[in-house]
């Protein structure tokens, strides 16, 4: 149950994928997340829980520098991704390509199923048809969608059901060959059965990618996350092994109250 010492040098050890130090996110004058420091290890599912408005989504946005497309959002502090300060990466497009993002409401782009998944490779300049075919099949398979759509890859992705679209967006994120996958409440628009399927997919995926998962469902964090952080009112309350968080050996009363459903 150790929150990293904010004054310590960013960890550059090999098993730390993402190292966040003193991160403060503001919209205009108002800081909505203050002074967050945490490490995310390679090949873990890192859960983030906390009530609405605690800054979870903004935290994810800051990790692939999506704050830069907003006119009001600003970020201070440092984020080391694979040992490199993301704010010093000159090619922000390359940074974003290495970080896959899945949104709360599935965003099936108004393209065919095939093109949804082939878009990222195409953006990277891959034109070879057989490479694209292979990528599409691999990503759809890993997202547990291939069997349902393999006969209608030319259908529009945006016309799939909600649960299928969410798996399509996961496949699309995987087509980026990401090192880090950011999931923002991925199951909010998905039925429980599909949610369980996606959770299985994620458990497999963590062999290859590091996953940060924001969720409003405390039990989902418990099922999936290796370690979990609790955000409250724009502050990181604590980070710990998920089981410790849920079995009560937590330092902070507020965390205990939240995971036991006493407020929030």
């Amino acid at each position: 149950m150790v929150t990293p010492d904010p004054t310590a040098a960013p960890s550059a050890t090999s098993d730390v994928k993402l190292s966040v130090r003193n991160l403060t996110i503001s919209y205009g004058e108002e800081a909505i997340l203050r002074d967050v420091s945490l490490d995310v290890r390679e090949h873990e599912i890192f859960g983030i829980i906390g009530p609405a408005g605690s800054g979870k989504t903004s935290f994810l946005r800051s990790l692939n520098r999506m704050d830069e497309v907003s006119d009001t959002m600003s970020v201070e502090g440092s984020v080391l991704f694979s040992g490199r300060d993301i704010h010093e990466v000159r090619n922000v497009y390359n940074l974003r390509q290495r970080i896959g993002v899945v949104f709360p409401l599935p965003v099936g782009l108004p393209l065919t199923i095939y093109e949804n998944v082939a878009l990222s490779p195409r953006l990277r300049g891959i034109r070879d048809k057989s490479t694209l075919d292979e990528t599409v099949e691999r990503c759809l398979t890993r997202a547990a969608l291939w069997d349902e759509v393999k006969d209608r890859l030319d259908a529009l992705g945006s016309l799939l059901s909600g649960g299928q679209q969410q798996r399509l967006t996961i496949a699309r994120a995987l087509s980026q060959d990401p090192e880090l996958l950011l999931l923002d409440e991925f199951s909010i628009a998905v039925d429980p059965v599909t949610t369980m399927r996606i959770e299985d997919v994620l458990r497999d995926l963590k062999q290859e990618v590091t996953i940060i998962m924001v969720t409003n469902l405390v039990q989902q964090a418990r099922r999936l996350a290796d370690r979990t952080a609790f955000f409250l009112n724009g502050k990181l309350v604590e980070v710990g092994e998920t089981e410790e968080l849920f079995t009560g050996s937590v330092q902070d009363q507020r965390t205990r109250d939240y995971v036991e459903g006493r407020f929030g």
Partner: protein
Amino acid sequence: MFAASALNERNRRVEGIYKALFGLMTVLLVVPVLIILGVLIAKGGPAVSFEFLFTPPTDQGRQGGILMPLIGTIWLVVVALIASVPIGVAAAIYLSEYAPENWLTRLINLAIINLAGVPSIVHALFGVGAFVVFFEFGISILAASLTLAIMTLPVVIVATRESLQAVPMAFREACWNMGATRWQTIRKVVLPNAISGILTGVILEVSRSAGETAPIMFTGAVTFLPFLPTGVLEPTMAMSLHLFTISNSVPNMPDEIKYGTALVLISMVLIMNAASIAFRVYLRGKKKW
């Protein structure tokens, strides 16, 4: 239990009054359009024929048809489209997709809205000074079309921007998150879903300029020419100015030719509008989200 109270009764009466009032206003709106079309068809219809459309006007328009003004208006509109669409669409893409949300952008948007309100005669005088005199295009299709283009640019920009902004923001965010540049996002996702709306909106707006008289009468349209233009640096006749001239300045003008000319002009605009609306309805049926 469901007996009407006094208040219910009153609400029902008021509801009826408002519904009737709004309905009446709608009827009032439609009536003038129907009268105009009805009169034009009744009085001008007999004059309109294949021959009328494709015969040169003679005797100052008292005889013959409307070939020169008809072809001239098509020239003017097409050249105006070629000039205004690329500029307007590019500017709208910048304003919608690239420009940061700040006071300068707001000022530019405000200026565009105000530009749409500039009277056409002012555009005409600007066109004379800029295109006829300064750029030395003379009284020509080019000068007149560029004047029309400048006059329609604001509506082209607004129509384009609306089509672009109808594409959900979530699509752009999804693309940016994948590492797409703004241009890649525009090209792969935004434009394919907006281009049809842009085209129909733009054609609709620019076709309206076919009926404009003031901007072309000092810059490129002349009252009478015995031949068709062969290039953009020549002057031309135009439907709107021709109608103005034969209605106003030619004595003993047969009524049916005036009405017939007006009918053809209004039909040109209506046909383009109808085509563009039909295209839009067709595309809405194919909408991808």
